[in-house]
């Protein structure tokens, strides 16, 4: 039966050999285009990198001037450490075990809170997006909780959990949970219904539809949600650490203020910025690894 299929298809195709070869010029153009696009991309990337670096240098220079000359023109720069002082503070701290412990604690809390949040919210989001009953039963309570900022949960979190550590992980969790949930629901609802139909007419069962269509179809949206959620979980964690923390980069920054070690404030802030940027980059990188097929500009091209 199988060889009959092959034998049957081949003559039909050879009859159309001319029709197919007429398309080949078009096809060659299509296969060549990505290489050319990446060449253009390199010089443009270099250009934007240089402009970006120059811009940062300019702002740092202005800041240095303002601090050294103690400008008090609306912004009071007299107590603001200059970049050079911050750099000196950074030199002192580099490799200091205490600073590393602050960073390590924050990263651990983010990892725990964010992992729990993404696991739970992706599963819930897929269910809410796919099944009407799940949407009807789960969405209303979540909609009531959603507008409450993670920071507002801090007092209750302290009461809810035995240790400050757990309550801070919980705040991180809350910060990441809703952006990921909403993006996942949005992603599932945005899947072209005909893709589901196509999979059904090709013999897919309900579980296959979920695994082969719903999950990959929602993935771009989920990755966007994860990247937003990573930002909000850092935001929430730093606030929680400032209020109730022991160790952690937010605690470090606030402690520097109370101890009047001003360069350390800026050092803490920059560290938070770098950690946030790094984790966000990590998510985008993982996203690209899992979605080689995804081109955000595919519809525009």
């Amino acid at each position, binding site marked *: 039966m199988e060889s009959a*299929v092959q034998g049957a*298809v081949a003559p039909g195709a050879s009859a*159309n050999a001319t*029709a*197919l070869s007429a398309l080949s010029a078009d096809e060659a153009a299509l296969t060549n285009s990505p290489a050319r696009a990446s060449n253009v991309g390199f010089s443009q990337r270099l250009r934007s990198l240089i402009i970006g670096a120059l811009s940062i240098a300019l702002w740092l220079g202005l800041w240095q001037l303002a601090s050294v000359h103690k400008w008090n023109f609306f912004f009071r720069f007299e107590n603001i450490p200059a970049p050079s002082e911050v750099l000196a503070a950074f030199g002192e701290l580099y490799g200091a075990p205490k600073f590393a412990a602050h960073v390590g604690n924050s990263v651990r809390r983010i990892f725990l809170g964010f992992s729990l949040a993404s696991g739970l919210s992706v599963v819930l989001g897929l269910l809410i997006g796919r099944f009407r009953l799940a949407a009807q039963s789960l969405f209303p309570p979540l909609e009531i909780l959603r507008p409450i900022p993670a920071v507002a949960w801090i007092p209750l979190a302290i009461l809810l959990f035995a240790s400050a550590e757990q309550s801070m992980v919980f705040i991180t969790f809350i910060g990441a949970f809703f952006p990921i949930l909403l993006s996942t629901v949005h992603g599932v609802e945005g899947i072209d219904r005909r893709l589901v*139909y*196509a999979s059904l007419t*090709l013999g897919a069962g309900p579980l296959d539809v979920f695994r082969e269509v719903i999950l990959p179809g929602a993935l771009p949206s989920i990755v966007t949600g994860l990247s937003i959620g990573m930002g909000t979980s850092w935001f929430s964690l730093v606030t929680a650490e400032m209020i109730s923390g022991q160790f952690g980069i937010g605690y470090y920054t606030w402690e520097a203020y109370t101890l009047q070690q001003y360069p350390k404030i800026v050092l803490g802030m920059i560290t938070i910025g770098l950690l946030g940027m790094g984790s966000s980059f990590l998510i985008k990188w993982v996203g690209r690894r899992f979605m080689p097929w995804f081109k955000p500009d595919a519809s525009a091209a």
Partner: protein
Amino acid sequence: MTQPATLGAIALHGVDIHFGEGKTAVQALSGIDLKIEPGEFVSILGPSGCGKSTIIGALAGFTKISSGELRVDAERVTAPGPERGVVFQQHTLFPWKTVAKNVEFGLKMRGIGKAERERKARDILCSMGLSEFLAHYPHQLSGGMQQRVNLARVLVNRPRVILMDEPFCSLDAQTRLQMQELLLSLWHELHMTVVFVTHEVDEALFLSDRVIVLTQRPARIKTEISIELPRPRTRDLLTSPEFVALKRQTLELLLGDALEPAKHSQSAAHSH
């Protein structure tokens, strides 16, 4: 190799389909009686929005019929199934799967082993001139190539019936003609029943054994035209006198219908 198809008979008996309830209810199909023989190529032709695609949905099994009976090979249609392949308009390849994985999908759902389904997908794609594009993603292909992959994805499962919902309508004229010829040769070799929905008169006449002409919504069968043109058909046929005559006759049928709803809506307005 050219033994006639014995499977793929379709029978609709008094099929009605309406959507919604109460005041917002819309009747899409009304009292459709239609018999299609195994291996027959039937086009369904009608004005835009008349409910042509609803018939495809019902035959595929994802649109429930409201009353009447719909059978494929004496079996009542209740759900989608791989023996009834569907080719949609466009953009229904899975964007996250390569061309080869798209074609393998139906075989994977049937539990066929990896090595065998890879070989089958490669064979059918090569026979359709897509051997260089196995590892490409759909968005890297032109519209015509995407629809060839779509055809391959359905045909690799050897369906008894293939349902096509305006599959070539978004392609340019030249590519469309190439696809029509490809479809005819595949149909000739594979002995399957084809139900082809289109609003293009040329396309319906060129491809079909029989053209079913529908009325405006709610769609009824207005008339059917047997196409006695010889096969195999090539593009030369499109400019032959008998084809042109047939086209004129069909256009009159269609345009006569398009004038009717204007009268209907006027009389409805008067009666309110």
